[in-house]
């Protein structure tokens, strides 16, 4: 009799565990640019169980950023694509891509910074006239913010596509270009050692501070079929951000461990990411559309109806 009861209890427990596992919805997410404070929100959320609490089993695929992230969600390879350039998303939507913006990912560009070698004659943006000024690639946020910085300082540097953070660093340190770009945590160790100096930051341009430059998108068909699931994802994401900023010791430690950097450097990185920059509402969409047209992502501005369809923040 005892054996029978024990067996039945074991069976009930196993069934309950299986059912709860089955109740977890599998969700896949493509994220561009591994290891940045803002792109690690999802990982932090998985680690702290925020997505699990909402019944979501999230799988992350890192991409190099750019169109690869967006196309992962457009082709249904993943349900979500995070940290996509707003201009690229507007352009893809205009071409019929089945995507919807569910939240802003980064508003303003406080994370971007430009630096020079220690010993360079360039002390600030005002000294960059005629100097080679790096940005990742034409049309990117580094390009647009770089141009805005130059406009604001009233100078005309030689805008030079220098590629990724790593390649840019080589070019600066080998004197191939005068000014390089970066985002934390990269190159902050060199700033701390005094090998390089920061001469400008994206937050130096006030007009950009109210423009969403990166957004998180979901596959439109998935959203139509699973609206509640999308709400849960957004909720978990928001709760994660709130937790990250109220528990900086733990969140910074996780960030440092993931990137294999000193916690001191990780903590310095946090200064580049005010909580307001990770706010959920999409801002400055008209400015983004104007830039998208200039950059040839869009041919004409999206109508109000199109914007209402595209931007569906819960």
């Amino acid at each position, binding site marked *: 009799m005892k054996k029978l009861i024990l067996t039945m209890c074991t069976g009930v427990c196993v069934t309950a565990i299986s059912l709860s596992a089955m109740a977890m919805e599998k969700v896949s997410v493509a994220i561009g640019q591994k290891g940045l404070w803002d792109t690690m929100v999802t990982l932090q959320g998985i680690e702290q169980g925020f997505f699990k609490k909402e019944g979501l089993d999230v799988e992350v695929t890192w*991409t*190099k950023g750019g169109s*690869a992230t967006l*196309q*992962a969600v457009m082709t249904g390879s993943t349900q979500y694509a995070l940290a996509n350039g707003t201009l690229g998303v507007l352009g893809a939507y205009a071409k019929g891509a089945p995507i919807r913006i569910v939240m802003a990912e980064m508003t303003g560009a406080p994370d971007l910074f430009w630096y020079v070698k220690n010993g360079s004659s360039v002390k600030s943006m005002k000294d960059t006239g005629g100097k080679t000024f790096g940005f990742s690639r034409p049309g990117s946020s580094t390009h647009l913010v770089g141009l805005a910085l130059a406009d604001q300082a009233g100078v005309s540097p030689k805008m030079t596509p220098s590629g990724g*953070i*790593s390649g840019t660093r080589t070019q600066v*340190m*080998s004197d191939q270009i005068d000014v390089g770009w970066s985002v934390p945590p990269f190159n902050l160790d060199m700033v701390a050692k005094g090998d390089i100096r920061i001469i400008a930051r994206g937050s130096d341009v006030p007009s950009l501070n109210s423009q969403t430059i990166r957004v998180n998108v979901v596959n439109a068909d998935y959203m139509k079929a699973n609206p509640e699931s999308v709400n849960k994802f957004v909720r978990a994401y928001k709760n994660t951000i709130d937790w990250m900023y109220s528990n900086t010791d733990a969140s910074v430690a996780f960030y440092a461990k993931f990137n294999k950097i000193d916690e001191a450097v990780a903590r310095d990185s946090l200064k580049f990411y005010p909580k307001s920059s990770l706010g959920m509402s999409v801002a400055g969409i008209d400015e983004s559309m104007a830039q998208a047209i200039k950059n040839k992502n869009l041919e004409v501005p999206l109508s109000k109806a199109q914007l209402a369809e595209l931007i569906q923040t819960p």
Partner: protein
Amino acid sequence: MIRIQIALIRLALLVFTIACWELISYSGLFYKEVFPSITTILSELTILLRTSEFYGHTWVTLFEVAAGLFFAISLGGVTGIIIGSSQVLHRGLDPILVALATTPKIIFFPIIMLLVGIGVESKIAMGALSAYFPICLSTAAGIRSVPQVFIDSAKSFDVSRLQLIRFIYFPAVIPELLTGVRLGLGVCIIGVLLGEIKISNQGLGFMAIEYYNMFNVPALYASLIVIFGMAVVINLAIDFILSKAVINR
């Protein structure tokens, strides 16, 4: 005597290369981080070979190469036989196959990603696409070189097309097919690694480009040494196996 001279020359070249490298590394001609010393690279190499991550990445790459080659041999062999056994098809499709064969396959990667997604399937497809052309072209050439007297003799026995393929064409084409596989393996490895470099979360190509992105240049050099070494060893091993297989026939 000649053998000793050859060995000494190779040793001298190795020493000279290492010496030049170290000289450049310490000279300040290049930014110090881009030319780490040989000892730094070797140290990173030993660290790399002791991590379980490395073996995980290696397994993924080997799996993708094996799967890609399997699909390339299956598809390339079959289409090669079909194309080679028809004069009209061969002369009609050969220009298209040659045009595609001389194109850098990596530019097809966006189409592959659009069709099969960004997972391991895209790397397998990339490897298969890269290896397909040498296998198909070699097989077709092999079929074309089957002596007409074999075909005429078989036809005089009223064999069906399938029997012709199975008993005449296929055995005759094996050396060329194996040559195609040899060539295909090399480009399959390259295709898979380039796919991993472009977009992946795993594999040796991903591992190398991650080191580049993190600016861990010694580890980048170490991972490239491993990748090159493995590619050369795999090619030599396949060369050896296939040449034995051809001899034993």
